[in-house]
């Protein structure tokens, strides 16, 4: 946190914890909707629980971002890339908030009780309705694939910074507490 070129430790812990959770969500999501085996019930329970956990984590994460900010990108990064980075981060934050809310609202609109963490029963956050259910279902379904694509682009960009540009951007979010990053170009 003292290092202005890195995200705060809280932000880095949240980033990697949520990264694991979000990847889990994609795989559990598409796996559960394509099986009729008893795994289905365990997967959908996991999907709902981790999804609600992510909703809690993203609130903390946005608060931390607001409180601690983010290290500046390297000055020599081309402007279009900087813009793309900024925009994609807004998209990622947006999806991290919207996806769990869509999941919860979709189940509410379908009149299903939302049971998470092995027995906690959440109240509905949307009125029951066929049209509403369909709109929310479509949004949850299509945005999930958009989200996965954006995460893959984000992953490629992170690896590009780490392996090719070696400009300290990856180290700013590195999961390792480690020593201060190398100087770009040094």
């Amino acid at each position: 946190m003292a290092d202005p070129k890195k995200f705060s430790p809280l932000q880095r812990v949240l980033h990697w914890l949520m990264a694991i959770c979000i990847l889990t969500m994609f795989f559990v999501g598409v796996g559960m909707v394509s099986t009729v085996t008893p795994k289905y019930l365990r997967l959908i329970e996991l999907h709902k629980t981790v999804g609600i956990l992510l909703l809690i984590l993203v609130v903390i994460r946005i608060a931390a971002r607001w409180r601690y900010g983010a290290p500046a990108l390297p000055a020599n990064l081309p402007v279009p890339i900087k813009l793309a980075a900024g925009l994609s981060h807004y998209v990622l934050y947006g999806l991290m908030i919207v996806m769990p809310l869509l999941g919860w609202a979709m189940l509410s609109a379908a009149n299903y009780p939302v049971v998470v963490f092995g027995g906690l029963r959440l109240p509905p956050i949307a009125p029951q309705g066929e049209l509403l259910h369909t709109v929310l279902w479509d949004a949850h379904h299509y945005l999930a694939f958009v989200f996965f694509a954006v995460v893959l682009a984000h992953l490629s960009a992170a690896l590009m910074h780490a392996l090719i540009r070696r400009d300290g951007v990856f180290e700013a979010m590195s999961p390792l507490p480690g020593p201060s990053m190398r100087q770009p170009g040094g």
Partner: protein
Amino acid sequence: MKPPRAGVGRSALGSWAIIGIVVAIAAIAFVYTAGWLSPQRTTPAKLVSALAPPGGPALGRRRNHVKGVCFTGTFEATGAGTAISRAPMFVRGQYPVVGRFNVATADPNAPDGTVRVRGMGLQISAPGQQIWRSAMISAPFFPVATPSAFYALLLASSSKAPDAMKMFIAAHPEFANFGAWAKTAPWTRSYAEEPYNSLDSFVFTSGSGATSIVRWSLLPTAPAVSVPPEVLAKQDPYFLDQEIAQRVKAGPLRWTMVVTVAAAGDPTADPSKAWPQGRRTVDVGTLVVQDVQPDRDGPCRDINYDPTVLPAGISTSDDPFPAARSSAYRVSYDRRTAEAKYYPRTAPEAR
């Protein structure tokens, strides 16, 4: 992209390759998990599509047990159920109910009197989002032992190959029991005269944490009057709906809910096998049906009678059906809600 510093150019190609491989592995793993690379996987979508009658599914409506009527009423708990489950609706008292009587067919044009099996969807609600849903049928056991056998049955019965059913029956001997029941069991002229059985087993957990594996049945208090199937086949295509709406006007209709507790070694994972006589039973309460409403705009329309929607104190067992049913009922619900305009809440004209 221009490398920012000299010397990395040599390895840049390799680095790009690494990035490409990482992304490709992630994408392939995702597509694999989604089942796009395994066309032979039985998915809920395939299971639901296989239920469709030859003329295609009834758009906007349930993909099975498509015909029926809604009902409302109460569940009057005796309190005896608290000995085996801490489900709040077993505590002595009254709990609101929204249910649905139905006939077990996916064909919206099948006359009521020609459908061998009848069913009931039931939702019992207790405070605190504690909801118990089940979908039960009048047959005393299920035609097949596993969800994949059910899928095979759907494929065989819609197959054009002349020996498809013969081969299915040879591979699934349990099906013969069902055939024998279907031929010999009496038919009745009312939903009110039928029992409705969970067939699937579930786990009850008591307040002290003791578990038992159970099945339950709703036994009618109305005496069953046997009617020859030829007579029923000549009735109005909707006579069961009309009959129950008429009957309930004369007074509430009642069923006793009896929970049967499995003994060690009973086939808890196989709903095609009845449990032996003499098992411990508990009379947990009475279902009282007070009112009947049309399917298209009644309160049951928006309910998916998914048998895995359970209150605290009831959970799924080693029976593989509830999971398969839950996944299929979800797809059925997703489809019918998306098609709601094909099943308007007010009938376009008298049916």
